[in-house]
C-alpha cells in the first residue's frame, strides 16, 4: 500500500500530509473526538484534519470494495459487508469519488426512491467516509430524504411521523414502579415504538415476569404497542423456550466480530434469535422482531477497533443490524462517557452522523438523546440534538420520566420533550397508535394531546384499572 497524501501551501510553506493507509486517512478525516484521541489515531492538528478530508474527497468510492479496513479473513462483519454487497444497486454512484458522492447526495436528483434503491449497494465505510465531508446540516438534510419503514403492531418510520420508546426502568425491577413510569408515559402518548425496560437483573425468570406484566398492560387497554425487556439475547431465547410473551428480541451490537464477541454474540446467534421470535407470529401488521442498540466507542472500549476510527466502526454495526430486518435500532449516543465523546459538540455531531449513516444504509434508526454527568453537556444541549434529529426524520426517540433514568443513572429525554416535538413539528405517532389515542378521545381539535386536568376521570380510571 502506497498510502495517501495531500500537499498544502506554496513555496517554503508547502507541506505534505501523509497518511499511511486507508484507516489512517479515515481516522484523520473524522471530526475531533476524545475516543479517537484516546486510541491515538486522531489528526494531531486542525490543518491535518482538513488535509485528510481533501484527500478523502478525491478518493474513488469503489476503493472501499477493494481495501478492507478490518481483514476479511478474520472478521465475520467484514465478510457480511463484502459478500452481501449489491453491485447492481451500487452502479449509479460507482464512478464517483467520495466528494462527488456528497454533492450527489445533497442534489435534488437523490430523492427518497433513489436513496432507497442505492442502500444495498453501499457499504458502511462509504457512508462513514462521506459523512466526514458533511456539515451537521448536510447530515440532517440528506437523512431527511431517506425513509425506512418497519412493522410489528405499529408502523414505524413513515414520513412525517415521530415514534418513541417508553423506557420505564427501575433500580430493582419493581413491577409497581415500572407500571407507574409506563402509565405516566402513556398519558403523554409515548411508547408507540416500544415499551422497553433495561432490566437491573439479567436472568430468565425476572425477564419473564416483566414481559408478562407489560403484556398484561397491553391487553388490558388493547394498546397497539410492542414490549421488550432488554436482556441479553441468550436470556430472551430461553424466555421464548419457556413460553414467555416475547414481542422483540434485543441485543447490543458493534462493528467487529471481536467487539460482538465481547457482547457475547455472533451473527449465527442473532439469526437463531430472529428465527425463534418470528416463529411466535405475535406481530399484527409486520414481522420485524429485532431491536438493536449501538454506540460510538463500544469497539474501542472492548479493545476491538483494529485502528479504525470510532465513527466508521460504529457504521459497520449497521451492516450487522440490517442483516436481521430489525423493527428498531438506536444509537445510545451520549451514554458511553467523555473518554469517547467529550462534550455536547461531540455528542451532537455523533448523533447526527449515526442517524445519517444508518438511514443511508437502510437501517430504521432511532436515538437515545442522552448524556452522563461526567460529560460536558446538559438538557439545553439535548434540546438541540432532539430537534435536529426530529427534523431529520429520526424513526424514534427514547423518553423516561422527567429525563432522569433512575436505574442507569444518566439523563435522556423526558416524555414532555417528545410530546412537545410532535406538536411543534406536527409529527404524530405511528398511525395505529394515533388511532388508539383518537378512539380513546385523548386528542383535541388540533390533534394535540393536551394536559390532563386536575382530578381527570380518565387518569383516575387508567391508574385504578392498572392497579386492579
Amino acid at each position: 500500500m502506497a498510502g495517501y497524501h495531500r500537499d498544502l501551501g506554496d513555496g517554503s510553506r508547502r507541506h505534505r500530509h501523509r497518511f499511511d493507509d486507508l484507516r489512517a486517512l479515515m481516522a484523520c478525516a473524522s471530526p475531533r473526538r476524545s475516543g479517537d484521541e484516546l486510541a491515538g489515531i486522531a489528526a494531531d492538528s486542525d490543518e491535518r484534519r482538513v488535509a485528510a478530508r481533501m484527500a478523502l474527497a478525491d478518493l474513488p468510492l469503489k476503493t472501499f470494495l477493494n481495501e478492507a479496513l478490518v481483514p476479511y479473513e478474520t472478521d465475520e462483519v467484514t465478510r457480511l459487508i463484502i459478500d452481501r454487497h449489491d453491485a447492481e444497486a451500487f452502479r449509479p454512484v460507482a464512478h464517483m469519488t467520495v466528494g462527488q458522492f456528497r454533492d450527489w447526495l445533497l442534489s435534488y436528483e437523490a430523492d427518497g426512491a433513489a436513496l432507497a434503491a442505492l442502500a444495498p449497494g453501499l457499504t458502511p465505510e462509504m457512508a462513514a467516509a462521506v459523512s466526514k465531508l458533511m456539515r451537521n446540516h448536510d447530515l440532517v438534510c440528506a437523512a431527511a430524504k431517506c425513509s425506512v419503514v418497519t412493522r410489528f403492531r405499529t408502523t414505524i418510520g413513515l414520513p412525517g411521523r415521530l415514534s418513541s420508546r417508553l423506557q420505564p426502568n427501575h433500580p430493582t425491577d419493581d413491577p409497581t414502579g415500572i407500571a407507574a413510569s409506563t402509565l405516566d408515559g402513556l398519558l403523554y402518548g409515548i411508547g408507540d415504538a416500544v415499551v422497553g425496560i433495561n432490566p437491573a437483573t439479567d436472568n430468565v425468570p425476572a425477564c419473564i415476569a416483566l414481559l408478562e406484566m407489560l403484556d398484561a398492560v397491553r391487553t388490558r387497554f388493547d394498546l397497539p404497542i410492542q414490549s421488550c425487556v432488554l436482556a441479553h439475547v441468550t436470556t430472551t431465547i430461553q424466555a421464548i423456550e419457556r413460553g414467555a410473551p416475547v414481542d422483540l428480541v434485543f441485543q447490543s451490537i458493534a462493528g467487529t466480530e471481536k467487539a460482538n464477541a465481547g457482547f457475547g454474540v455472533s451473527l449465527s446467534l442473532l439469526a437463531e434469535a430472529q428465527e425463534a421470535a418470528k416463529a411466535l407470529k405475535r406481530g399484527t401488521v409486520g414481522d420485524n422482531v429485532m431491536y438493536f442498540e449501538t454506540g460510538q466507542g463500544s469497539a474501542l472500549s472492548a479493545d476491538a477497533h483494529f485502528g479504525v476510527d470510532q465513527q466508521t466502526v460504529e457504521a459497520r454495526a449497521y451492516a450487522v443490524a440490517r442483516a436481521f430486518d430489525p423493527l428498531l435500532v438506536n444509537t445510545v449516543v451520549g451514554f458511553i462517557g467523555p473518554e469517547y465523546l467529550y462534550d455536547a459538540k461531540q455528542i451532537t455531531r455523533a448523533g447526527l452522523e449515526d442517524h445519517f449513516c444508518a438511514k443511508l444504509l437502510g437501517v430504521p434508526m432511532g436515538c437515545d438523546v442522552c448524556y452522563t454527568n461526567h460529560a460536558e453537556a446538559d438538557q439545553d444541549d439535548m434540546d438541540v440534538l432532539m430537534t435536529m434529529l426530529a427534523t431529520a426524520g429520526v424513526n424514534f426517540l427514547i423518553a423516561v420520566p422527567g429525563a432522569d433514568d433512575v436505574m442507569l443513572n444518566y439523563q435522556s429525554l423526558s416524555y414532555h420533550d417528545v410530546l412537545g416535538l410532535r406538536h411543534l413539528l406536527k409529527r404524530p405517532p405511528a398511525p395505529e397508535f394515533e388511532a388508539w389515542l383518537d378512539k380513546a378521545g385523548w386528542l383535541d381539535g388540533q390533534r394535540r394531546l393536551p394536559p390532563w386536568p386536575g382530578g381527570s376521570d380518565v387518569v383516575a380510571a387508567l391508574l385504578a384499572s392498572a392497579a386492579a
Partner: protein
Amino acid sequence: MSGERNDPWARFRGATRARIALGRSGDALPTTALLEFQLAHARARDAVHGAVDFGRLAADLAPLETVRVRSAAADRATYLRRPDLGRRLDPASAASLPAGDWDLLFVIADGLSAAAVQANAAPLVQACLTRLGGLRIGPVVLAEQARVALGDEAASRMGARLVALLVGERPGLSAAESLGVYLTWDPKPGRADSERNCISNIHSDGLSIAAAADKLCWLATEAARLKLTGVALKEDAPSLSGHDNHNNPRIGRP
C-alpha cells in the same frame, strides 16, 4: 394534580424514585420540576468536579496509617479524557510506596464522586476492620485522579495479596454520593474487570455501610480461601446489589 387525598398516583409514588406525574406547562415541564432537575444535575456535576479533601479523610481514618499518591492524570480534565492515565501511578508516587507483606490493602480512589468518598469511604474501612480479625492490613492508600485499576499497581508494589479499591461512582441525579468497591486477588497491572468482584451503590439511600462491610468481608474471606476473585467467586456469593451499573452490558464500559 388534585389534593393528596384524591391523588390517583398515591399508590405508585412510593414504588419508584422516577420523576413521574410531574404535570405540564403546555407541553413543557412546570417551573418547580424544571428547577428541581437542575438542582440535582448541579449536585451531580459538583460531585464529579469536586476535589476530595484527603487531609480530612486521613484524619477520619486515624489512627490508621495512610499514604497519599496521585495517578498519571495531572488534572480532572485529563482524568476524564484519558482513562489509561487514571489507571497508572504517577512515577514519583509509585517510588514512594512502602514495600511490605500484607493480606489486604485498602485503596481509596476519588473516581467520579468526591462527595461519595468524603462521606462513605472512612466509615466503610472502619466497619470492615471491626469484622476482619487476624488479617495483616497495610497502610490505607489515598489516590487522587484515580480509577479502579490503579489499585492493582499500588498493591503489587506494596506486596499485598488482596486489594479492596473504594471509588466514587459516576453520579446519577438521585444518587450523587454513591461509593463502589472492587476486590481483586493477586493484584498486578493488566488484571481484567472479570477478575474482580464489585459491590456497588453504597450510600445513604442505597446499600448501607454495614451491609456493604458484611459483603466485602465475606468476599475477602472467600477470596483468601479460594485464592481468586472475579466471575468464579461471584457465582457462590450472596446476591450483590441489583443496581450495578458498572457491569451494565448496554454498550461499552461506561
